[in-house]
């Protein structure tokens, strides 16, 4: 099935279309943030602090006179970066380990899945908080000791490294468990026996014959997982152990604007709702992809 067909299939359902559109908007906003945003996320204007929405500032300004809309738009870049990099780091590891565990079974399986079990033994969010809180300072210190990384340290970029490494350190386990299950069921099929009987080596059986048939559930779970990553980033930044100001993060915006919840509720509502709508969109998109990619679901 090619991409055009998938998009056409997504368009059949109002909710998956919504998901597709919102997620595309997140990507475009994140990529073109400097072009779209009317102000830079760091631009302070103390003369225009705490302003209500106006023509100059469509969503008003915060206590430092920074444009709320611009910070939301730049926040999309933060969210997008965290999602893409965490998935790009955790997913291949998860797929590889899951495939090895599912295909070879025995000791390999036991070792890989016991390690995953340890990660699953924690309430997920708590483990993320714990790793970010303990590894954060170490990563920070390490980066500070290397002169070459100085510009990154000054730009607060280390926060991003901390968030991304925390999330990918945990993210692989869920993917490994999923792929392991898929591989275990696919490897019993006849065509796998056929491939093996003509002498195909294990890696070829795994990557040429098994994985292409396991890819749809993986894509669906990536879409569902992206929402969770955005939520985790928001939680971490809300707690002050994720992306810290002045860098733009929706979670941190909610925290620092919360003091105004009575007088200027929009300052808190907007970042919260943006996070909610994007998670909703990823869930809808995941459902839609599930329908579009699975040849066995009945067409209505």
């Amino acid at each position, binding site marked *: 099935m090619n991409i055009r067909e998938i998009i056409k299939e997504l368009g059949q359902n109002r*909710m998956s279309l919504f998901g597709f559109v919102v997620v595309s908007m997140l990507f475009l906003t994140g990529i073109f943030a400097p072009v779209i945003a009317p102000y830079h996320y760091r631009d302070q204007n103390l003369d225009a602090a705490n302003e209500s929405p106006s023509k100059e500032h469509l969503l008003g300004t915060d206590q430092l006179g920074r444009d709320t809309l611009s910070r939301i738009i730049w926040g999309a870049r933060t969210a997008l970066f965290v999602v893409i990099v965490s998935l790009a780091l955790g997913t291949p590891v998860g797929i590889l380990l899951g495939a090895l565990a599912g295909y070879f079974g025995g000791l390999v399986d036991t070792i890989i899945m016991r390690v995953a*079990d*340890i990660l699953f*033994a*924690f*309430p*997920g*969010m*708590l*483990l993320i*908080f*714990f*790793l970010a*809180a*303990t*590894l*954060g*300072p*170490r990563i920070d*210190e390490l980066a500070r000791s290397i002169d070459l990384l100085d510009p990154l340290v000054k730009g607060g970029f280390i926060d991003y490294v901390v968030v991304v490494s925390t999330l990918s350190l945990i993210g692989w386990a869920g993917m490994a468990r999923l792929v392991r299950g898929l591989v275990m069921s696919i490897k019993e099929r006849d065509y796998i026996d056929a491939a093996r009987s003509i002498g195909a080596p294990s890696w070829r059986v795994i990557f040429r014959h098994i994985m292409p048939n396991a890819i749809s559930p993986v894509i669906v779970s990536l879409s569902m997982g992206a*929402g969770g990553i955005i*939520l985790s980033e*928001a*939680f971490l930044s*809300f*707690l*002050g*152990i994720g992306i810290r100001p002045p860098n733009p993060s929706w*979670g941190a915006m*909610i925290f620092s604007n*919360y003091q105004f*919840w*009575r007088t200027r*509720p929009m300052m*808190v*509502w907007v970042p*919260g*709702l943006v*996070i*909610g*709508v994007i*998670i*909703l969109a990823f*869930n*809808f998109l995941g459902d839609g992809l599930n329908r579009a990619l699975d040849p066995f679901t009945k067409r209505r």
Partner: protein
Amino acid sequence: MYTYLIKRMLWIPVLLAVITFLVFILGIYGPGDPVQLMLGQHANPEALERLRHELGLDRPLMVQYADYVSRLVHGDLGTSLKFRGQPVSRMLGRCLGVSVPLNAVALGWSIPLGILLGVIAAYKEGTRIDRAIVLTVVVGISMPVFAIAPILLYFFAVKAQILPPGGWDGIFSTKVILPAIVLGIGPLAVMVRQTRASVLQTISEQYVLTARAKGLHDRRVMFKHVLPNALIPVMTIVGLMFGSLVGGAFVTELLFGIPGCGQLAFETFTARDYPMIMAFTILGAAAFIMSNLLVDMLYFVIDPRIRRP
């Protein structure tokens, strides 16, 4: 099946040992040399050595770990850095006295209602009622507490002024209503989704067809044949729900000014109070493991199919 259960039980001490070890290593040495952190970058080496010796951090790692575990087992979780000199265990005890009743109220309304809505959605599968319930559920799962709480707070506490904006007076005060709603929305949505899926699957079983074929009333089929079987997998989710409550509790208790474990955890995480952070993580994991084991054992009691060897 007995062997499975016994294996699970034997695995738990191993799991707890690994977890405490991980938390210990990361909590003490993860952030950097703990002594250096306490005395600052430019402390003189002699002072560093002295403090290291006083705290017992110059001993072999495994000895330190064994010491930590033995104190843990005796209920000594160390002292908080942020709240100077306060024993961690006493602070945890105090906050649990608030958080446990609060979350009990949240689950108390959301689990039964979730099951009810899930059954209704499955019963009316494909109709407008079903679709409305399912849509609401997806929205409920997606909206984080920090999106829901400020909106509810604004409308009920500022605009309408019918509910207090926060604080804590026990579970029989009106102050509990808003936070219990916010905390319950996630579990509610998860329950509806799981119940609906489970009921739909059970309905297609042959024994349900048999029950229908012998002319039983719809309601009787539902309550006698479908529900008892459909609710078994739903229980697993109740066990896992504990995990999802954690993140929400941090934010909810903070936003509503409730002096529970969520708020305490928030303060210790932001202040990087490592003894407290370690205690929270270990206790959270232990409680999570126990709740999942409990669900497994409950399965065993309820479902005769699993009991068969």
